């Protein structure tokens, strides 16, 4: 038995060396070949590669990325500016009826479901999105900060909790959204059950189904949005808090600093670049919310049978691509540019504010 094992080991070893030698020799042949070509080109002075080394090589390495980027990133940017000035662009026969500079923008701005809520719809995409952004972002950032600080201060079970908090990140937004919608069901949803257990009579209370009040469905949306965005924030905050030099805390301890002040005067300033980064990216991300709304309310963006909707700006844009107003791509482009402008302004404002608060 031992002999058998020894023999198989020997055979395997020989096989391994044979394979390695094979690849080695292949490499030798290829190298020789390359050298001969190089010599040949040098002799006849054809070696273009050595005359423009940096330039040509860079092109070669960048080409796959650049080709894809040109078609699907640069071209769209240019084309969008073109689209925006088309009038009545018809996609099926690729025709337009004319040009208009501001027409499409006006259409968007005056659209009753965009900014100014109409009487009968009672809500607009911009207002919805603003509510979502200004409520969910501060709450989620603060909550993530507290959780990260709490996590950092314990030793046992730390990685256990870390794993749990990270779970929402690895999920499919729509799948878990469906679960949330189910949990908030009026008849026998988990939430109403739990409310009943603490004495609040909630049987039949509609959160995301027909008859739901605006604030209740908005609550579910914001709750879900915070729930799914916590994981990433916690992870980033935790990593940066762990990177703070322990000596700062030691110095504070010697000075008998109370815990609250340690948090506000040491921890927060030292990770302020990270907080700023998370704030900016969260605001931008929250402005582009879409999947979560679809998960909870479907493509219509509202609970069935109500007279308002929870559409976000992005949802508003998509209706012009394949939703209720399909084919009206110019308006979609105009709305996208307006969205871009809003995000840009907010980001610049945040950067201005941060100049005083963020310490690098």
């Amino acid at each position: 038995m031992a002999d058998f094992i020894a023999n198989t080991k020997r055979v395997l070893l020989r096989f391994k060396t044979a394979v390695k030698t094979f690849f080695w020799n292949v490499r030798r042949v290829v190298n020789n070949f390359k050298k001969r070509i190089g010599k040949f080109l040098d002799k006849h002075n054809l070696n273009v590669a050595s005359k423009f080394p940096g330039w040509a090589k860079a092109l070669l390495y960048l080409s796959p990325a650049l080709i894809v980027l040109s078609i699907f990133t640069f071209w769209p940017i240019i084309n969008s500016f073109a689209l925006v000035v088309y009038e009545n662009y018809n996609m099926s026969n690729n025709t337009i009826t004319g040009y208009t500079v501001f027409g499409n923008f006006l259409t968007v701005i005056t659209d009753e479901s965009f900014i100014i809520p109409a009487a009968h719809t009672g809500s607009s995409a911009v207002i919805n999105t603003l509510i979502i952004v200004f409520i969910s972002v501060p709450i989620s950032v603060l909550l993530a900060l507290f959780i990260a600080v709490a996590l950092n201060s314990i030793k046992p079970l730390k990685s256990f909790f870390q794993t749990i908090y990270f779970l929402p990140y690895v999920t499919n937004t729509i799948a878990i959204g469906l679960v949330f919608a189910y949990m908030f069901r009026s008849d026998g949803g988990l939430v109403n059950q739990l409310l009943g257990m603490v004495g609040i009579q909630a049987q039949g209370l509609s959160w995301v189904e027909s008859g739901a009040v605006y604030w209740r469905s908005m609550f579910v949306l914001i709750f879900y949005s915070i729930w799914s965005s916590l994981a990433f924030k916690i992870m980033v905050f935790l990593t940066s808090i762990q990177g703070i030099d322990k000596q700062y805390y030691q110095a504070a301890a010697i000075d008998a600093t109370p815990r609250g002040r340690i948090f506000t005067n040491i921890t927060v300033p030292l990770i302020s670049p990270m907080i700023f980064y998370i704030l900016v990216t969260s605001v931008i991300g929250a402005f582009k919310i879409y999947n979560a709304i679809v998960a909870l309310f479907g493509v219509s963006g509202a609970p069935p049978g109500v007279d308002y909707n929870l559409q976000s700006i992005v949802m508003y844009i998509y209706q012009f691509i394949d939703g209720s107003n399909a084919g009206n791509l110019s308006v979609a482009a105009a709305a996208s540019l307006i969205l871009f402008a809003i995000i840009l302004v907010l980001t610049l404002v945040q950067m201005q504010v941060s100049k005083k608060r963020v310490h690098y």
Partner: protein
Amino acid sequence: MELRLENLTKIFTNKTGAETTAVDKLDITIESGTLVGLLGPSGCGKSTTLFMIAGLVKPTGGKIFFGDDDVTKLAPEKRGIGLVFQNYALYPHMTVFKNIIFPLENLDVPRDEAIERVKEMANLVGIGELLDRKPSQLSGGQQQRVAIARALVKKPRVLLLDEPLSNLDARLRLQMREEIKRIQREIGITTIFVTHDQEEAMSISDKMVVLDFGKEQQYDAPQVMYNNPTNLFVAKFLGNPPINTFEAEVKKGYLILNDQKFAKVDITDGLYDIGMRPENFRVKEDGFKAKINEIFHIGRDTMIHFELNGKNIRALVDSDSIDDSNESVSLTIKNERIYIFDKETGQVVNHG
């Protein structure tokens, strides 16, 4: 294989157009099989010279010859050099074995021979049992040996080392510089190494080149350079404790120190810079009297501080020849150990 630098020059132009001359018309011939040290203070152009020999930096002027071949325009990989970087530049994700065999993968060498060479080289530098480790698991000295093995495994014509010992601690430095010397002797390869530590260069080089601001100051064997410096810079650069330098007058063929006739010298009258090494002073009865300012005992030597021509001079003498009770001492110094330098050119005027 003989290495020859002919008027090698390198001028850097930065973005604003200002020019810096890093290497200025360096002209040196290095005999085959010698270990030569490129010595000088920071920024004197020694690393630049090394990299020009390697081919990583293009010279602005001049030529480089490996033997009879003009390699000035040749790409680095075609020159047949081995280069050991200051921080070793070992590939962190590869084992020692893979690190050393890496250069051979681009040469036309059969695999068995390559493995043989790696083993042979590893044994030569003393890391034969560490072939399966990764660089992060090795100490500084071991990493350096791996770097040397990697440089030598392709049997280069020239071995170049960039500040090989500066990353090691003091005790290791002593050990490693003897190792480098031993390896070089055993293989007999022409080797150039760059350093700013004069003691290091002096201890192992066959010959040294001292550079200052890109210009060659002297090219000689270490001991020759020590005893016969061609200029003030070289004299000041070598030696620990450093040479004493001060101004003095020569009147009527005599060197005047402390307003006394000190020694007979065969040069024209005038004001000169004088150099005297501390260890060249001897305590002797009929020397010149000096008032002791301070005495330091350093184990086997004693350092005496006294004044000459208004400057504080150090003398290093035997501990037995003096004790703390003395207030003054009588010292002599041999004539050939007095170095007289021209005030303008810095060149030595009373030697060779």
